[in-house]
């Protein structure tokens, strides 16, 4: 079915209640719901039409018109189509019905929108302050009338202490054999600063509530005070393990907003760099995940050795080793021309790929020929098929659940159409499968890098100059990429100035980590690091 048929069907069922919007992008379906109360019905209809995941909820504060606009993005597992559902609520009393019963994946986005934009979702099961202190009495921080100076007088210290016991009442009521265990914010299995509150009986976890926001930096708000070129540097800091991936997403979104096309060699180079970044990210994950379930950091040092070599390669192009800001608006890095890429860089990359293959074989032997590894990872943290889509998983977690979904294949960007690679999938959806998928993905990335280096045009411009006045456009920019941790989306709205009016980021890690709420039920305490580690947490991205 195509966009036209879907829009006709929606129009037929809802008549005057909805408007069909003209979309800038092909294959995107735009719907405006006039009455916010009708939102669940529209969502239900979309689900019947095959849209299966709520990717993102964006709230935009149109302060001049005294309304808050909500934009819901729904995606499909089989085509590149995305449905945009827009609705407006008044600013002083923003209330919409929650759609969590139809799209379970919206739970975390609704919490985030409630917390940072002050929109109440009626009927939401777990609407709580997650990123802000529980008794926050200032305006919601992402609204336009929130002045950062307001927060200076806020007594953070006492509030943080109160935030530490959000389930006090629950704890008092339960009987004696059940105890509550707070895992994190400082805990080695957490890989950063976040917290899991566990309800346990003996060694078994009955319930788990994840909680984020301990290092939230408000970059989405911060972006409204910076020019487009300056924001590029923030995008490195989203996910410091895969900074290039976010650079790319951001650059693509802004290029979409400005309507510019990058030169051909830059596209190829971007793909090569993105795949190198994927290998870096997965190696870092492997290092940490092995240490979690007890190999006494042997693998940690082996994989970091490979990662260093990749850092050297990226350093030759960017001069930086962790946050590169290499993919910029209009092209790649500081190079104007493909001829200026340092001598021998391409050969060194090929050499690396050759050696990397050899090392991967070694690592596979260490991990997959180890009986203790099977014992430890088989059959725990299981989420399969439809349940994984429902819960909002993307990336390796979704593929391990048996769904062949990869943005690089479904909605190819840059030159992914022209290279040959496979999407590895798992069958059982347990921790073991997630390990397996990431291992295979690294090998596929190596394949892509080889092809790109061979086929890439070695001369021609790498970057087109975008003069500052050109940034003063109004409109929307949108990009979705396959990041190492899952599907990343960036939605940016310009309103004529040299700064964006609103920037919204879909963090795949946030959605994947919210899965712990479902995955940890019935698991053992000893399984916790294995399950959390298999989701590949990166807290910079969650608390962006």
């Amino acid at each position, binding site marked *: 079915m195509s966009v036209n048929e879907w829009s006709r069907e929606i129009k037929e069922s809802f008549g005057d209640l909805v408007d069909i919007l003209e979309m800038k992008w092909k294959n995107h379906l735009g719907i405006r719901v006039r009455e916010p109360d009708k939102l669940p019905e529209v969502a239900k209809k979309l689900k019947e039409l095959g849209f299966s995941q709520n990717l993102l909820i964006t709230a935009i504060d149109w302060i001049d018109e005294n309304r808050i606009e909500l934009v819901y993005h729904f995606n499909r597992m089989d085509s590149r189509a995305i449905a945009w559902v827009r609705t407006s609520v008044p600013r002083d009393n923003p209330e919409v019905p929650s759609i969590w019963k139809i799209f379970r994946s919206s739970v975390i986005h609704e919490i985030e929108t409630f917390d940072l934009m002050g929109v109440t979702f009626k009927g939401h099961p777990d609407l709580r302050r997650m990123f802000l202190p529980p008794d926050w009495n200032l305006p919601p921080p992402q609204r336009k009338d929130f002045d950062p100076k307001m927060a200076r007088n806020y007594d953070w210290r006492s509030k943080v202490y109160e935030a530490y016991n959000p389930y006090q009442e629950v704890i008092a009521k339960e009987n004696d054999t059940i105890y509550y265990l707070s895992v994190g914010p400082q805990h080695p299995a957490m890989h950063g600063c976040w917290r899991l509150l566990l309800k346990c009986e003996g060694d078994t976890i009955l319930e788990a509530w994840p909680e984020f926001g301990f290092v939230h930096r408000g970059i989405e708000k911060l972006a409204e005070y910076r020019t487009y070129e300056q924001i590029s540097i923030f995008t490195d800091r989203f996910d410091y393990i895969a900074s290039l991936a976010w650079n790319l997403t951001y650059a693509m979104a802004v290029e979409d907003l400005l309507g510019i096309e990058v030169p051909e060699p830059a596209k190829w180079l971007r793909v090569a760099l993105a795949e190198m970044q994927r290998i870096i990210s997965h190696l870092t994950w492997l290092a940490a995940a092995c240490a979690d379930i007890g190999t006494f950091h042997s693998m940690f040092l082996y994989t970091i050795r490979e990662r260093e070599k990749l850092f050297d390669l990226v350093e030759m192009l960017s001069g930086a080793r962790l946050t590169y800001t290499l993919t910029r608006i209009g092209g790649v890095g500081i190079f104007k021309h493909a001829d200026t890429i340092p001598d021998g860089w391409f050969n060194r990359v090929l050499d690396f790929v050759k050696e990397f293959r050899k090392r991967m074989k070694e690592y596979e032997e260490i991990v997959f020929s180890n009986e203790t590894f099977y*014992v430890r990872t088989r059959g725990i943290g299981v989420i399969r098929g439809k349940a994984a889509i429902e819960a909002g998983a993307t990336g390796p977690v979704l593929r391990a659940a048996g769904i062949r979904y990869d943005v690089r294949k479904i909605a190819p960007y840059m030159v992914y159409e022209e290279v040959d690679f496979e999407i590895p999938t798992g069958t059982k959806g347990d921790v073991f499968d997630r390990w397996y998928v990431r291992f295979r993905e690294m090998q596929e990335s190596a394949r892509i890098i080889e092809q790109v280096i061979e086929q890439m045009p070695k001369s021609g411009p790498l970057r087109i100059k975008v003069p500052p006045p050109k940034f003063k456009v109004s409109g929307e920019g949108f990009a979705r990429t396959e990041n190492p941790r899952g599907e990343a989306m960036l939605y940016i709205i310009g309103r004529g100035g040299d700064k964006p009016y609103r920037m919204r980021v879909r963090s795949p890690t946030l959605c994947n980590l919210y899965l712990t709420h479902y995955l940890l039920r019935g698991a053992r305490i000893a399984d916790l690091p294995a399950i959390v580690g298999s989701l590949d947490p990166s807290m910079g991205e969650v608390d962006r």
Partner: protein
Amino acid sequence: MTDLITNFVVQLRNWIASLIEYYGELLGIPSWMWGYLVGLTMFLIGFLAFGLDILFVVWMERKVIGRIHHRRSVTETGPIGFFQNIADVVKLLVKEDIVPIGADRFFHNILPPIAAAATLIPLIVIPFAPQLYVVRLSTSLLLAFGVMALVPGLILLIGWAGGSKYTLIGGFRSGLQLVAYEIPLGLLLLSIVVVTKSLDLVAIVESQAQLWNIVKLPLGALLFFIVGTMELERSPFDIPEAEGEIVVGWRTEYSGIKFGLFYGTEYFHFFVMASLYVTLFLGGWYGPILPPLVWFLIKVHLVMLMWIWVRLTFFRPRPDQLLRICFKYMIPLAFLNLLWAIGYVIFFS
């Protein structure tokens, strides 16, 4: 030649005894105390040597792990980083001792030295060389393992006294581990007793003069190695500590010298377990050319090296999987080993 070191120790003891006799008379110390003073002095000398060896073992472990990790490990303090451990001990001594609000203050203070002492007690019955042991008991095997079985109970108490849920979980895991490995351990010791016909460690070593027990009971030696790993709580069976899960478990709430004592305890235990392994399976002090004590120490350190090696690439099983390993596989195999031992006694001797 072979008795050189033993002779030296005996000479040393005699010299100290005469010294104490002379000065005791001079200073008016009552004569019934002289024997104790000699014992105390010998103990201090022995403990000093033992402590130096422990420092060497820690250094060796660091270096070996560094080599396997493809890194350099300690290099800066002293030649090839040899004095790093002394620096660490000094650091632990001067660190602030923190007792959490929720902890039981009395037990928090008293348990670390008790645990360290409990791991050291088996040393008095271990024969280092033909005449080089503190006491010879007819049931020294039972004493050594009986005292060592106390340690998990102490760890449970330590975990409880820490006053945190994590330390308590760690303590209970230690108790669980004891339940898991104690039965196969008992069966393995029984097979040793069957083969050597004695509970006396000196007699056990002497019975291995011709043929070591590892040849007589190969399966038993392998099982004992695994059970020893469990008893030592070393990776992959470091379930009570489990850094990624319960943040080094029972030790979490102990800082400063208390943590240092636990660290020391771990290595005292390590040394004791390795020397028991050598005594039971590797023929104790027996070996050609070199003096018996040197042979004994070489074997002990080789066994420790093996334990360091297995630490590095195995994933840690869950507590319930550990129970399954022990009850489903280790106990039947230990019985098989016992049958083998009985068969060996009947048919080969």
